[in-house]
């Protein structure tokens, strides 16, 4: 019974968490739950994740990212070859109409090189996403725990 309650509680938390996720909509593009991973104090680079839903009729592409918190930001992907992970820069992230693209741990992500300071859990960062069609979209995002996995329903306490 306790286990049932526990599972139910988790489920309710999940529902509540999803409803509270960050949400922005500009020109048919929805920017959903952008977040950065907390870093160690001496970190030179960091990572940002986000989901982008293209609810418009037109294909678009995320082509660049600008931020004042790092020397530069790049779009990266992870290639898995025979169990070896290779991170590589990519030119753009394609956003087909009606589709949601996930930038998430272990997949495509935004790399921040030359951080001007560590990313501290709970802090807010400003970032500009530049789209080929929609143009620039300024977003704010929260730094989450180093152990966060991007879901809203757990693991946030993983580094307590």
């Amino acid at each position, binding site marked *: 019974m306790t286990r049932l309650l526990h*599972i139910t509680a988790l489920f309710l938390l999940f529902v509540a968490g999803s409803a509270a996720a960050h949400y922005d909509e500009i020109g048919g593009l929805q920017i959903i739950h952008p977040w950065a991973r907390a*870093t160690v104090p001496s970190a030179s680079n960091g990572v940002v994740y986000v989901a982008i839903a293209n609810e418009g009729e037109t294909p678009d592409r995320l082509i660049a990212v600008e931020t004042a918190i790092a020397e530069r930001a790049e779009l990266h992907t992870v290639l898995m070859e025979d169990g*070896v*992970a290779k991170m590589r*820069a990519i030119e753009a992230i394609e956003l087909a109409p009606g589709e949601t693209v996930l930038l998430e*741990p272990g997949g495509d992500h935004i790399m921040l090189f*030359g951080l001007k300071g560590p990313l501290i859990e709970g802090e807010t960062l400003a970032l500009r996403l530049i789209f080929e069609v929609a143009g620039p979209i300024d977003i704010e995002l929260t730094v989450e725990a180093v152990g966060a996995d991007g879901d809203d329903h757990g693991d946030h306490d*993983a580094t307590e």
Partner: protein
Amino acid sequence: MPSRLAIIIAACVFLLAALGVAAYVVIELRDRPAASGGGDGSLLPATLGGPFSLTDHTGRTVTEADYAGKYLLVFFGFTHCPDICPTTLNQVALTMRALGDRAAQVQPLFVTVDPARDTPAAMAEYVALFDAGIVGLTGTEQEIADIARAYRVHYARAEIEGAPDDYMMDHSVLLYLMGPDGNFRRLFRPDDKPEDMADAIVEQIAEDE
């Protein structure tokens, strides 16, 4: 007493929903492939791993003998890795939590493939973030090359265009469970669920006993 009836109905609905969620969770877990590494694991020779001499994150020289009697969960990465490595360390931290009392029998070892930048101090700062008893291991280029070869781990420096001072490391992302006898037991993948990994480790301990 309509209010009492309402409470009973609400309780029934709640219980039904809870049962539904529980059933879903049980079915999901059952249908998921076991985290034992399956076919991949059986392809790896029992000779995988072996003796090593490295420096832990406190600056102490350690060998496999320092962890005698324990299961080792060995994995490779580097601290300038913002994406895969924190995900893996977190996966290990959650596995250790899921192990409960059994965690005392398991020592996670995070071995850097970037000894040039990963000093013991850098490793200490990094493993501390995860608070899971993970030991960070670094060494000379040769010592790291030796342990990587012993675990069939590939790693290579990858330059970053426009940033001559910075670089990434390509590296194998598998996790190796070694027995107290130093022999390879099981392989885990970066997308294995911590609960499944903990179950597989407990199963392995029971099998060995």
